[in-house]
């Protein structure tokens, strides 16, 4: 759960930074990407551009994603641009891929410790989209989606550089980050679970609380809850006058409260009063086993929670035994034990199920292998490893088109996954019509 939370925080932290910069009156502008790398570091900068974007990178390996990133952003902009802006921006939007956290920290002037603490991987500062290269993460991250998330921040600031609070920024960015592929924004089971837990505890955040910078919340759970409530509130506003309209109104009034009153038809005081009891509590939480699990408060002493903890421990025990069997080459036994481990927890890490899949494969249970991997990608759509394994299976079955789509999924979440690039190229060589043209 913490991992899910952390990854969520990673994606969303950009808004906080936005908030910080908004509050800051410091006149110092950031050092430019070129200025930093060329003049200070004496490194060669590579660049690629399209109609509306310019992508810069330093490490040669990042060329792997540069073209795909450009294409993805351009496609998203084709749809988001008209939604947000009445006219096109006059200049190309700069997208900077940073080779590591140190340089990212140095250019953005944000402390390295803060980067580590919040897991920040992308920022929008001075209307520059800044991304940390996915090379830095062993399990990768959804870099394309993150880039669109940052693009939304950019577009919001194009409408109204000031007056937009963090909850609105983050809410809107979450709503549109799936463009151009996924246009419906929704919460993950873990997020619903957290929301439910706080709702049941009567501890949801007030509207005022959402104005405070999210990463400075008292604990990571509360920070995550801020993001969740921001998204839910923006979805609620969408049903009123539309969130983009609200942003435009804010820009025109130079005041959010007036815009909110006009948008919702409610006085701001009443809106604040009704925020938790009516708006937040009125949201229907999906009924789901996973949601229920995440809603468990494991910090208390209730019997059910203790049971939950015990079950969690049991599943880890079985996973451990499974791992021991796997390492000894006892794949049937490993599968048997991992199945037991998964029975006791609805939220096993994807690597467990991947290991189960590997055990199936090695004990020649190919159907089970495929089935379990499909389950993993359903629960963890960002799990590049599972997509990659599925693609390999599709190649074995000579389903090349399917394999291509699986490779793409893996690529968009962890492009530097071991062996992925080589396999993608191989597929392109075997089936020229299925070649990945964005590869360098």
């Amino acid at each position, binding site marked *: 759960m913490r991992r899910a939370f952390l990854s969520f925080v990673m994606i969303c932290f950009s808004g906080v930074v936005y908030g910080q910069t908004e509050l800051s009156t410091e006149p110092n502008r950031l050092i430019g990407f070129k200025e930093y790398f060329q003049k200070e570091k004496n490194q060669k900068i590579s660049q690629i551009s399209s109609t509306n974007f310019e992508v810069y990178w330093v490490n040669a390996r990042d060329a792997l994603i540069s073209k795909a990133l450009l294409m993805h952003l351009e496609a998203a902009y084709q749809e988001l641009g008209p939604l947000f802006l009445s006219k096109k921006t006059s200049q190309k939007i700069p997208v900077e891929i940073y080779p590591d956290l140190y340089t990212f920290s140095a250019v953005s002037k944000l402390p390295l410790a803060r980067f*580590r603490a919040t897991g920040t991987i992308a920022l929008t500062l001075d209307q520059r989209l800044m991304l940390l290269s996915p090379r830095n993460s062993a399990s990768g991250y959804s870099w394309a989606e993150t880039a669109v998330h940052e693009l939304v921040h950019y577009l919001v600031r194009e409408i109204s550089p000031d007056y937009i609070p963090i909850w609105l920024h983050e809410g809107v960015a979450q709503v549109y980050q799936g463009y151009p592929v996924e246009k419906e924004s929704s919460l993950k089971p873990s997020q619903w679970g957290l929301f439910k837990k706080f709702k049941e505890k009567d501890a949801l955040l007030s509207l005022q609380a959402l104005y405070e910078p999210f990463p400075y919340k008292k604990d990571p759970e509360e920070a995550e809850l801020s993001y969740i409530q921001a998204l839910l509130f923006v979805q609620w506003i969408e049903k009123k006058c539309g969130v983009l309209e609200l942003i435009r109104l804010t820009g025109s009034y130079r005041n959010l409260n007036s815009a909110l009153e006009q948008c919702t038809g409610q006085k701001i005081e009443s809106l604040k009063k009704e925020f938790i009891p009516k708006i937040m509590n009125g949201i229907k939480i999906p009924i789901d086993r996973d949601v229920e699990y995440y809603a468990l408060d494991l910090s208390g002493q209730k019997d059910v929670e203790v049971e939950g903890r015990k079950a969690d421990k049991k599943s880890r025990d079985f996973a451990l035994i499974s791992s021991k*069997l796997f390492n000894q080459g006892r794949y049937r036994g490993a599968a048997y034990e991992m199945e037991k481990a998964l029975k006791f927890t609805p939220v096993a890490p994807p690597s*467990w199920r991947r290991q189960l899949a590997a055990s199936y494969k090695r004990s020649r249970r190919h159907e089970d292998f495929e089935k379990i991997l499909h389950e993993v990608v359903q629960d963890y759509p960002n799990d590049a490893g599972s997509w990659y394994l599925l693609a390999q299976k599709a190649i074995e079955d000579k389903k090349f088109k399917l394999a291509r789509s699986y490779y793409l999924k893996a690529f968009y979440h962890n492009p530097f996954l071991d062996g992925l690039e080589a396999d993608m190229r191989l597929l392109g060589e075997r089936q020229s019509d299925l070649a990945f043209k964005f590869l360098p």
Partner: protein
Amino acid sequence: MLSFERYLENQRHRLIFFGLLEALFISTLTLLVSIFFFFLVIYFLVPSVRFFGGLEPAAFWLGLTISLSIFCWSFWKQRNRFLYVSLVQACEVIESQSPYFRLNPLHRSELRTVGYFLENQDHPTRSFDFHFAHVEKWKLKLSDFVYSVRPRYRLLASSVAIFVLISTIGSFFSMKGMILPSHVRAWNPEQFEILLPHQDATWQVDNGALSGVEGSKVRFESPNFGIFTPYLFVKEIEDSWKAIPCQERCEFKLHKRGRYAVGTLFYRSAYFPLQVFADEKPKGVLFAKRGEELIPEATIDLLNIEEVALHMTASDDIHIKKIRLLHQFEDQEEVLFEKPLQAKRYKADFTLSVEGWKGGSHHIFLEVSDASKIILSLPITIQYADEETLRQERLKNLEVLITEWVHVLGDLIETEIDKKLHPMLRQRLNEMEFPESGEAELINAYVKELSLLRERILKWIAMPNFNETTSFIERVERQILYGLSLIFQEKSGDIRDSSDRLTSSRESIEKLLQNIRNGEQALDSKQLQEAFDKLNKALEELREKMKNLPQGPNDEMINREAMQEQMDQSEQLSERIKQIQEQIANGDDAGALNELESLMNQLSILSKSIDRALQQMKENVDKGAIQASKEFLKQLEEVRNQQETLKDQTTKLKERLEAENKQLKPTDPKIKKQIEEDLKKAHEEQEGLEKKLEEAVKMFDEKMKGSEWEPLFRSEESKNLEEEAGENMNEAGRAIKAEEGFQAVAEQREAIEALRKLAETQEQKQKQAMQSIQPPSREEVTRSQVDIISSQGKGERERRRKILESLQKKVDKPYQKSHEQYFEELLQR
């Protein structure tokens, strides 16, 4: 066609050549004669006569000079043979050698005249016509007398003489070493002196045949042979005779046995034998001393003992020069004791201190040296087992055992899936070996449990009921998990050790840092460098140990580039230490101090995180389980006491029954009824006790389920005893009902015994468990029960990795505070 003048000229040249050869040959002949003479002088006259003693070199050079002078003189004397050869001489030789002149002796001297005329053509008094006509006449006869002159016979004779002389001199030279006079005169050896082959040896007088150790020198007084030089003639085996001139004494170094004689170059004594013995290697034996008993080549197992008694003996046929006691461990060698000696034998006790030794196999040797040889004794091997070695060994054995059981589990699972006994299961169990685990009680208990489990499975394999497979799988799973937790405990002990060392290194650096700030110490002090070295070592050790903790499933589907970068960065702490050292070396004191402070902060966080993790392990101990065990023990005591009381009652009842049965008359119905009622009551009580035990066991089972202590408290051994007690109680109840008093009492007694053993076992396990959760000495920490899984789940492992990696990364000073705060938060999660 060859001209007449040319012919004569050619012949003259030939004659010059032959003349040169002759001169050379004759001179050489003279030289050889003189060499031969001097050879005789140098090698026979000078060595033979005492008066010339020591003149050999002078005689040699003198002889050489004289011989060369004679050669030159002779060659000079022969110069006319090739320097002044005229045509007349050439014609004379032709006349003497050509067959024409032999057949026409009257023409002899005419050709000589031709030669003369040709040589004196420009003479003023000549009669030209006559000359011309005479020459012309012989020109025409050229074809008749033409003949190529040949060397004279003396050339051949002189070359033969040279050959003969060279052979003679060569023979003399080659015979020089073998010259042994054949004429024998009487001489008897008297006493002689001998010098043994070692540095401090002195000449010692001896009698009889010359004899000694190889390499010794022998000498005796030279006999007086008048003017002749005395010689010692020696022939060692496989060698030829050698003549050694004697001065005041005849002296010789013994190499091999053989013969010798004494004499001059003209006569000698009879042969006497030479006796030589090989120099023996010195001998050394090292003994382990046990009381009065001396044990050579011993292998000694030592456990936490600080001294070992040894005894050294050494000897040599000549002289021991030195002894050394050597200690060899892995690749290192040190000298424990060294003593120079001058004796043939040496014996001494030695107390060997093993304090501070590392665990492992140590070898002790005695090295004995004589003048030329060094030997090493057979070693005393000391298997020194310190706590650390024992622990490592236990750990290794445990890991092997668990791996075996992982395979047993695999076999059982496949048996369950296939509903068919896995072909390897029986063999695997039969071949399984259980390690000795020494003092480690928890591991001992664990190994015992596994052994019992093996017996059960083997029994089951004999008549397999596949409905029971799942139960065996669960048992084996429990045992594997418990075993892994034991490994984790052992390894966490390791980590605690390293963490303590890290903390101590950090503290000493901090102290030094404070001293530097106060100006009491220089930044580049040696102490600081040493502290850095220790710190580096502690960090390395800790990193290694953390890496080796038991881990859950590994995620293989990752971006290894990132992992590699992280791994590279994990070296950064060590790198930072290096950087600081460089800064100090470059005189950047301010920068180095800043860096050092930042480094100390990071290390402080690292220590905190490890301490917290270890503390957490301790807190994870399921204290409730111990409480439950105590309650169970109390119940067992209660049941046993009640069973004792019941046994006494049953004994009385048995006696009453026996008394009634002995009577000849029928039993009084009242008494009979009373006995029956008492029996019924006793039976009910017995059943009640059995049920009470069952309930206590069931409740204990429930409480232990899922606990980390389950494998310890609910061991096979306990279960067997519980079953035994239950069965005895049940049997006792049946016997009471059947009025079999003797049987009932016997069963009750056995039930009491089983209950007593059960209570003892529980008490022991409780003790083991309690010991393992006592804070915080290392020994106790290694026994502490921990929730190993909580540290092995991927999330936890990932978190631990992140913390450690992040700690090893450098942050700028302004961010240090927030950096620390972040880790504090992470650690509290």
